[in-house]
Each structure stands twice: as C-alpha cells, then as structure tokens.
C-alpha cells in the first residue's frame, strides 16, 4: 500500500485477479495454558489478513523455546496454532524454531484477495461511521490475571475474545462497502484509529460510552492495573488526540490500552453501519458503532 502510510499488511499485485497479502506477528505468552496461547497468537497473526479484506492461505510457524520447558508444552502451543489456522481455512506449511530464554510464538501468513477487494486503512471518508468488532480491555485484563485479581468468568471471556478470528467481520464488511479497515492491537484503539485517520487524512470522533469493554475492565483500570504499554501509547499520541474533560483517568487509559488480538475497526458508509452491526450480531460477533469519520481537523481524534 506504499511506504508513506502504515497499513496492516504488505500487498503485492500478482495479476489482474489476485493480490498477495503478507504479514508476520509473534509474541510472548499472555496466558498460562499453552494451547490457548497458540490459538491467540495464531488469531492475532491471521487478523492482519482479515483487516485487509483477504483470505488466509498459508502460514509458517515462528517459534522461540527454552530448553528448560517440557517439549509437550511446545506441542500444545503448535496444536493451538494449527487448529486456529485450519479454522481460518488455511494450512500450516512448516516453520522455524530457535532456542531462547523465554517462549515466543506466532505466524508468518500469506493470504489472497482480488486487487479491487483490498481494504486499506487509508481510505476512510467523512460521513462514514466506525464499527468496532471486539470489546477493549485485553491489556488491562491480562495484567489483572498476572495480579490474580480477575474472576475466572472474566478471564474465560477475555480468552474467548482474544482467540476469536476476525473472519466473519472481514467477510461482512466487504458486503457493506467498507471504506477502510484496520485491526486493533498493540497501539490500542486510539493508536490504530490515529493511523487510519492520518493515512486517510480525516479526523475521527469516538464516543467512549459506545465502546464495548470486556467484563471487569473498568474495575481493574480504576484499581490502577494498567500495563506500561498503555502509558507509552498515551505519551506518543497525546498531542494528536482530544479527550473530553468528563473522561476519568482510567477511562482514558482504556483507550490507550494495548490490545492482544483485537477486533476490526471498520469505516463503513454511515447509512449501512447499523445493518452491519445487526448482521454481525446475527452471526455471533457482537460489535458496536463507536463513532464517525469527520473532515480533517486540528487533532486526528476527538473522544467524547
């Protein structure tokens, strides 16, 4: 999509009918269960293909693993990843492992899309409304799990959220003429939204009360269970974002909270947004309209 704006994946036009999409993502564990870690890491890596409007085709494992852990742990991680790639309709065709002090796992993924079907993050238009397809809070929640403060039920919901594919959301957005799309990961909602706004040369207005949150996110944020990454994101973005005075400090930090395997942020024609949300709800993917696209203003994003 060019080097001037940062999009979710690399796209290479193969011929009139096909464009190749490539992406890579890997990270350290955020959950204790190795199979679940494999599922989440795979869903996270596959997400960039979906964010571009493509279908995953082929994936390669990227593994770092210490000698001191039993090999059965690695087997479970790889099984989690493989099952998730199969669910996405792709195949794992191999990979590479290196010894490391701490485990890391992810995928290099190749996907395909018709060149006209690629949805970049640089084409949001004033009049579009913003749809978010997964709730926020995974950074805060994962920190709360480390602190042993989270209820088992909330941890289970967070795990389901992180391991879910953005597959249905990606397919549906194409049917609703989505203008632009990006997925929400390490820079938090505001970081990735700012990328979309800057690339599209627009401004975005986001309504905090409309943003879906994972259970117990607010409670944990109020307790100061906030990862350092959220403060890094805030420091980077603070000059580009207006935050309404009524927002409490913990509410602001939720918007900067780095997400793991988050949902898609889709800019869709204003009149179609509610129907897209309704269709996704019918498919078992709860989503919400969280804001709108405006002509470019002084700040990239204003949060009300």
């Amino acid at each position, binding site marked *: 999509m060019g080097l001037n704006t940062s999009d979710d994946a690399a796209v290479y036009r193969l011929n009139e009918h096909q464009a190749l999409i490539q992406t890579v993502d890997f990270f350290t564990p955020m959950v204790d269960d190795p199979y679940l870690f494999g599922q989440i890491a795979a869903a996270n890596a596959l997400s960039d293909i979906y964010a571009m409007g493509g279908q995953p085709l082929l994936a390669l494992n990227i593994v770092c693993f210490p000698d001191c852990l039993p090999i059965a742990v690695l087997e479970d991680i790889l099984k989690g990843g493989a099952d998730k790639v199969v669910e996405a309709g792709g195949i794992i065709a191999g990979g590479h492992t290196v010894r490391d002090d701490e485990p890391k796992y992810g995928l290099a993924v190749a996907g395909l899309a018709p060149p006209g079907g690629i949805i970049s993050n640089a084409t949001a238009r004033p009049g579009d409304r913003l749809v978010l397809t997964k709730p926020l809070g995974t950074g805060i929640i994962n*920190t709360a799990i480390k602190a042993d403060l989270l209820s088992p039920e909330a941890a289970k919901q967070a795990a389901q959220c992180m391991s879910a594919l953005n597959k249905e959301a990606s397919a549906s957005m194409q049917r609703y003429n989505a203008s632009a799309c990006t997925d929400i990961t390490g820079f938090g909602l505001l970081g990735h939204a700012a990328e979309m706004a800057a690339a599209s040369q627009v401004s975005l207005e986001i309504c905090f009360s*409309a943003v*879906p*949150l994972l259970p117990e996110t607010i409670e944990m944020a109020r*307790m*100061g*269970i*906030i990862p350092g990454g959220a403060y890094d994101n805030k420091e980077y973005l603070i000059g580009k974002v207006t935050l309404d005075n009524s927002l409490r400090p913990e509410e602001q930090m939720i918007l900067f909270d780095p997400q793991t395997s988050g949902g898609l942020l889709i800019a869709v024609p204003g009149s179609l947004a509610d129907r897209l949300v309704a269709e996704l709800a019918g498919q078992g993917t709860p989503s919400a309209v969280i804001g709108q696209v405006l002509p470019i203003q002084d700040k990239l994003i204003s949060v009300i």
Partner: protein
Amino acid sequence: MNHKLVDCRGLACPHPVINTKKALEEAGVDTVTTIVDNDVARQNVVLFAKNAGYQVNEQPKEGFYHLTITRIGAQATANQTNESAAPTPAAVTPTVGPVYFITTNALGQGSPDLGQVLMKSLFTTLVAMDPPPAALLFLNTGVFLTCAGTPVQEQLEKLHTHGTAVLSCGTCLEYYGIKEKLLLGDISNMFEINNWLNKPHKAITIA
C-alpha cells in the same frame, strides 16, 4: 497512627499496586508510603489510591517516588496516638445501589394505563432510594421513558443528578425511530448493558 513502608523498587506492574493494596488492608494501618522507581508504577499507584478514596502525597526523592497514602479523615500527625478501639479495614468500595434492567415503559402485563401509572410510581420511589440506583438500563419499549414525551422526565433528571447512570439501548432507539428524542443519559449497546448486569451490584428486572 500506624504507618507502613512498602518498597516496590525493581517490581514490575502490577505488583506496586497489589503490594500497596495489601498493606492498606492490614489491620491498624492507616498510612502507607510506597516507594516506586518508575513513572508507570507511580501513575498506577496514585490512580488506585485516589479511586479507592485515599489522599495521596507524591514526593520525588533521590530518583525515586515516595507516595504517601492516607485514608481521608484519618489523623496524619506523627504525635497523635491512636486511642480508638477496633481498627477499621481499608474502605475500598463505597456502598452502591442496584442496577435496574427496564424492558418496558408500562409496568406489568395488565392494562397499559395502569402500567404507566405503576411505572411513574416506581420512578418516584427510585428517586427516594439511598444510595440511589447505580444504573438504569432501558431496552425495547423502555427507551420511550428516556425520550421526549416521557412521564418520568423529572424523576430521571433527579436520579441522573444523584449519579445514577442512565443508558438507553441504541438498537431500540433506532428501531422505534426516537434516537433524536433522547433527553438524557447515554446511548448504549448490548455489551455495555451486559457488563452492567454482570457486575457485583444487585440486578433487578422491570418487565
């Protein structure tokens, strides 16, 4: 006055908050000084303490931050001896009212007129509650109660002023074509509504 020092230098988040919280919950402790070595830990401990109702005094010292956290109303002078009988545990959460899940604008299954009268009566009762309801969640025909023409506008305004969250389902407002008539509170979604229903508050359904 019982004062405890909690040294969190070298500890990664969330341990500074956890260790501070544990110290404040100890019997007899009413002031804690937490030492942290980074700004993230400082901000998180301050956020925790303020939201939990404590007073925080921040002091940079030799490259670290000394955060002195005192219960508001506790005697903080060094000379004061604690003569009271039983130590009180740290108050972390204040008492809160219940959450009302309101799925209709006419209370009950019988006559609609009676249903409206009963609904008005319910809201008048809610205004008198102490503590006030934590939140009112309006769905389906319930959203007519938060829009222009509602018989309970005055009661809702009072509740809103007392701090009750008023949330109206966006899908329902759109369905009935009354989104522009919303008078107060926020337009919400199923996620947020479900989050409220799953909080520790008592949840009461009005159908």
